[in-house]
């Protein structure tokens, strides 16, 4: 018995000691588990492309490209009216139509929120991809370039809308003082920041033609130059505008679409004229711009949408009767559309925005409608405008655009000719209000239509009140909106 006991004791002792040893030695390995998902610790070069893709994804949001953005960039201008039923305000769209919006209007808050959300995603992409040493250098540069292009686009829209805004480039450390986190940069500082991002993009992005077919839609050097030209246009930096637009024209990457109306059809997506457009897919599972077509679709019996953001009488009447762009831009009640759809007399409004019309997925939440952000015609118009300031060939580029629209050439185009051409060519492309302000004639033009544009106030939209509150008053309201 004693002997058995002793042996047993020995064995158990050995067993326990080895158990302890094993236990002690494998602590780190033990804690490794197969994760169900990627956690922040595990983000690596493999996620680089996804980080950038998610930044593009913001372009599909309601706040950045759809209902709220239309209120500011379109309904507020003389091109568009609120539309829809008189009783349906679209929350605050009726206010924008008569410039009666204020700092508490929901669209004001949403546009701010959406663009900063995009900036946050771009920052994540840029700051993380920078550290992925094992990623192919060329791809790494390109991806950062794409993200910077998008970040520049977001900041450009913010500076157009709100003036100087806080510049956020990192994940904010919520513990640092609010003054440093939320200080409003000046308008010039924001423009400078945008220009730096775009110059860096230009250095690394490829031409459109060098992208594989399945990568179409990514930012290109042409897009970055065009956007930089536009950013310069808004600062009256005419030499830069001229130089960059000449570059784009000479690149041979782009051309005008022969038939203007085709640009907004399915066949016109990413065509020769397209420099940058928001990609959308209508087929299920659909990935498109949130309710962009739906909110602007014809309303009422026989219609397919909510009927907001409709062409104004003033826009309609401004077109030359021979201008092909009028019917390509406007859906008329009683008209049969290019795809054979009849728009019955029972719809509520006399006109709708044809550029938002999706033929195949008419009333889907997310249609296949690609939104054109930058296209070759605008390059020509910017080229013409810069030339008219600096004394160059204005008629050449301008007439290319005119002729395509079925209009005759003009010989000595004036500044107002260039501006009008811009209006007709780019109607409903989210520029008109900012253009009027830039051209310094917003007050004249809008007041003549009875819209109470107030000089010293309406050049900018107000900073959302909720953001001012959350910033403990560090964010200061724009003049006239206090």
């Amino acid at each position, binding site marked *: 018995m004693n002997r058995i006991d002793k042996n*047993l004791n020995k064995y158990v002792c050995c067993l326990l000691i080895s158990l302890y040893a094993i236990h002690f030695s494998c602590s780190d390995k033990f804690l490794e*588990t197969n994760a169900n998902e*990627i956690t922040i*610790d595990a983000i690596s070069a493999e996620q680089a492309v996804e980080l950038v*893709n998610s930044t593009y994804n913001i372009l599909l949001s309601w706040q950045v490209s759809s209902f709220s953005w239309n209120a500011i960039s379109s309904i507020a201008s003389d091109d568009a009216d609120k539309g829809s039923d008189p009783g349906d305000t679209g929350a605050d769209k009726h206010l924008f139509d008569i410039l009666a919006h204020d700092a508490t209007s929901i669209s004001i808050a949403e546009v*701010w929120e959406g663009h900063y959300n995009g900036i946050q995603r771009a920052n994540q992409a840029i700051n993380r991809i920078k550290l992925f040493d094992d990623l192919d250098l060329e791809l790494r540069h390109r991806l950062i370039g794409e993200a910077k292009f998008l970040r520049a686009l977001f900041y450009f829209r913010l500076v157009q809308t709100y003036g100087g805004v806080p510049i956020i480039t990192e994940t904010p450390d*919520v513990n640092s003082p609010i003054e440093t986190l*939320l200080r409003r940069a000046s308008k010039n500082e924001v423009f400078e920041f945008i220009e730096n991002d775009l110059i860096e993009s230009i250095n690394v992005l490829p031409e459109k033609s060098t992208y594989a077919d399945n990568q179409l839609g990514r930012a290109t050097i042409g897009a970055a130059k065009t956007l930089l030209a536009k950013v310069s246009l808004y600062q009256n930096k005419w030499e830069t505008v001229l130089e960059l637009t000449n570059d784009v024209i000479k690149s041979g990457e782009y051309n005008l679409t022969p038939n203007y109306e085709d640009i907004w059809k399915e066949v016109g*997506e990413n065509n020769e004229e397209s420099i940058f457009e928001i990609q959308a897919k209508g087929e299920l599972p659909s990935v498109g711009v949130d309710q962009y077509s739906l909110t602007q679709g014809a309303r009422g019996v026989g219609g397919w949408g909510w009927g907001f953001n409709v062409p104004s009488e003033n826009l309609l009447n401004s077109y030359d009767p021979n201008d092909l762009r009028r019917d390509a831009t406007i859906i008329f009640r009683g008209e049969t559309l290019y795809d054979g759809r009849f728009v019955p007399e029972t719809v509520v409004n006399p006109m709708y925005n044809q550029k938002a019309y999706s033929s195949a997925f008419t009333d889907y939440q997310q249609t296949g409608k690609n939104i054109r952000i930058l296209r070759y015609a605008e390059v020509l118009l910017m080229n013409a405008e810069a030339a008219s300031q600096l004394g160059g060939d204005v008629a050449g580029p301008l007439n290319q655009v005119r002729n395509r629209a079925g209009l005759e050439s003009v010989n000595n185009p004036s500044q107002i000719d260039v501006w009008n051409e811009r209006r007709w060519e780019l109607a409903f492309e989210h520029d008109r209000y900012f253009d009027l302000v830039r051209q310094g004639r917003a007050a004249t033009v809008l007041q003549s239509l009875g819209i109470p544009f107030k000089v010293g106030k309406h050049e900018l939209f107000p900073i959302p009140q909720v*953001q001012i509150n959350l910033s403990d008053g560090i964010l200061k309201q724009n003049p006239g909106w206090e």
Partner: protein
Amino acid sequence: MSSKTSSLIHITLFVFLFTILNAQNFYSGTVVDENSSPIIGAAIFIKNSAVGTQTDFNGEFILEANIDDVVVMTYIGFEDKEFKLNVKKDLGKIVLIEKIDFLDEVVVVGYGNQMKEILTSSVSSVSGEDLTIEPIINANQALQGKAAGVQIIASDAPGSSSQVIIRGLGTIQGGREPLYVVDGVLTNNINNINTSDIETISILKDAASLAIYGNRGANGVVIVTTKRGQEGKFSFNINSSLGFRNISKKTPMADASSFVTFSNEAIYWNLNSDSNPYNDNSLSYFFPTNQLYNTNWLEEVSQLGLITNYNISASGGQSDIKSFTSFSLNKEEGILIGNSFERATFRNNINFKVSNKIDYSHNISVQLANSTPKSYGVFTSAYKQSPIVPVRDKNGRYGSSIAFNNVANPVAQLNLQNEKQRYLKLQGSFKLDYKIIKSLVMTSRFSIETNYNRFYNFENRLAKYLSLEPGNTINNFQPTDPDAPEIPETVLNVSHNNDYRWFLDNYLNYNKNFNEKHNIDATIGIVAEANKYESLFGSRTNVPEESNLNFNLDLGSNNDGTEESGGGFSEERKLYSYISRLNYAYLNKYMLNASYRRDSANFFNKKFRHGNFFALSAGWFISEEYFMENSPFDKLKFRISYGELGNSQIPSLNVVRFNQGFPYPFGSNQDIQQGGTITATIQEDLTWETTSEYNFGIEFALLNSKLNGEIDLYKKINENAILPMELPDTFGFDPFLSHVGEISNVGAELSINWTDNFTDNLTYSIESNLAYNQNELSKVTNQFFANQIGGSINNGQYTKKVSLGQPLGSFFLYDVAGIDDKGQFVYKDVNNDGEVNEDDRRFFGSFIPSITAASNIKVEFKRFDFNLNIYGSFDNKVYNGKKAQRFGNENMEKYVFNNRWTTERPSSSTPRASNSIPLSSNYFLESGDFFRINNITLGYTFNSSNSKIFKKIRAYATAKNSLILKRFSGYTPELPGNPLGLAGVELDAYPTLSSYFLGVNLSF
């Protein structure tokens, strides 16, 4: 020759001589303990003489003595017993009473035991005996009032556990429940533990005792130790009881005619209200005064509850193998018709002495439970449904109120809920102790716990549709629009949730006394655990409703319009820790204790995985000092401690995830490419909350230890509490959670016990405790902290808010100034800005009581035992949510009807009849103070000395909650739950019940 042996020889010699010289009488008997187990080796001698003997293996003895000799019986650990002999030679069973001596008391602490004498931490112990005096199904409910500073918010719902808060609420986003440790298994609750199996429960309250549980110690730890087999013949215990339950206090409701009067007044006021030009036509219909029905809905949905408990256990063994086995069955038919719960448990605990160095033991328990749940929303429906609605109309269809309100028919609601829940839980721990040398023991323990839970829910949507409105028929069930999708008539949902965890604990314990002066007790070890959770669910539509359906997802085929769907989820958590503790005591007078645990957890981001927790404590047994010799104190001890603890039960999103839900279509074919980013609803550094705690305690005993007690003062601070932040949209992140707050709990605990006997036949004890706790969100360290609102009562009104300087769970309401000349509420313009709006809400105190008090009185008189437990909690508020939720054409309390404002009888406190949603105001807030008789038990132990079978027969009667004094007008002021949810708000709550039991305890 030692003095003992010499005296023994003397005695023997003396006895021998005596025997020869005197013709003596032989007295015989058996010495037993209170459980009737024989006491072996008890000394029996004649007072003031050297004559004596010892009891044998069966506790029996024979003593030669004379009439009128005084016999003394002694045994270590038991009170001495003296009595005079008379003519009766057979002394029968003589019971020795166990000595209650604090010096020998052992307390169970984390990963070991400690002598109470040298304990330097705050630990409350409850003995299993105190739990079996009365019938209790759920062990944690039995803790109510038993330990100071342990607040139990009881729930009487079948199968439910009560909420346990130890030393105040220390977290708002994290888990609030304490950690439970059952024979070494770390677990979430003790619902599966048969109360009769419990030997002791230790409640660890301060950092000194909790630090060894590291990142799970912050909410306190409840250690349950189950009974083990005793050496000796197998003995059996049977406990059985039968009980009835009903609602303690019902709220009187308006009857049909009152309802009609009130509702018509409301409609009248509504139509005449200037401020409401768009009157809802559905509310503009006046009720006829001659109503056919007068339904009392609460009576229709409730019944007398019935509880039956059976428990049998067997214990026994030899010196090297001992076992304890038990089996129990509990069944409860709830007071809500159809609501039931039944539970069976089995336990087997074995101790096996393998060799002189090796001890093996295991504890295995199995629990099976079946529950038929019913929505407690039925209590709200029964409160709100109009008495003019019949249970069933003359055609036999469920009565409907769809024409005038949106309340379900409570009886239909009950009958149409077809749900079952089945639980299986296995717990087992297997332990090996290896004695390397006498004072050094190596322990290895492997434990497992697995839960297998299955939930079934059969929805008969057609039957529900038919019950809604008299006009509903099977023909109009489907939508008229041919394009609309078909509505399934029935849906069967099944889900299976598995939880499997294992623990491996390896530790060394060294315990040695040097020179009878220095006592060292050290523990060091490594523990690891893993927990895998898996969930699977499926559903199928249009399954046939058959009584033998048995929740089978296989019924119906895809061809006849059934649709299936399913899903699942899994998670794995792992923890790896080092533990250590060192106790040093000098002369058992000066004590020092240090403990340390390092935790590494896989469920935090890598950089924030490791955490260190420690505690230091010291004690001074001042009554052992020579200068205290003449003091009145039999015992006086001071102890002081400081330590840091963690709460790792933080919200489940505790790992920042790469969120892949942001695709974008590239290319001419518009192929969707995956997009991902960090949207971060939490901060990257989210990890456990760290609590630091100071404790100062005094233990004392006076008057020959008849009076003893403890006083504890503590300050407990959660230094990095997780709170929600609302960031400016400029940051581009969603609102998120971060460590930006500090929650403090400061309190005092007092417990006082008095034990005495008037005569040999009448002993009594009074154990009382009192606790005070002050809770506060004491600091917020970030500018973006969002005052979080909560306590929504589902009608757009919220009732609570988390705010700096306020206790957690504070009510934040409009302040009623009075009733205006139109009978409507007037609210105070708190900020004096000329208008009453959101900014005029103010704080009214928390639902968490700051004072709890209890007293436990035990009296034993001859064969009777009497136990009285009273409990109260004070200084808190409760919100009458069901009353505040009352809306158009719903029923009202009789009091509200009788006291309403009318033009003839303007009231200054109760508004006029109204059909609109009231703002959440202090009108609905009431005092939560209550005081009640938790338990009265009267038992009688029969004389079993003549019985050959039974060692003990006891019968008892118990009344629980027979008397409750409360100010709250609702069903119950005890409203457990989420502090940001319905805790402290009575809505869909289970009422407090009064229960009456009869039971027996048998031993043989």
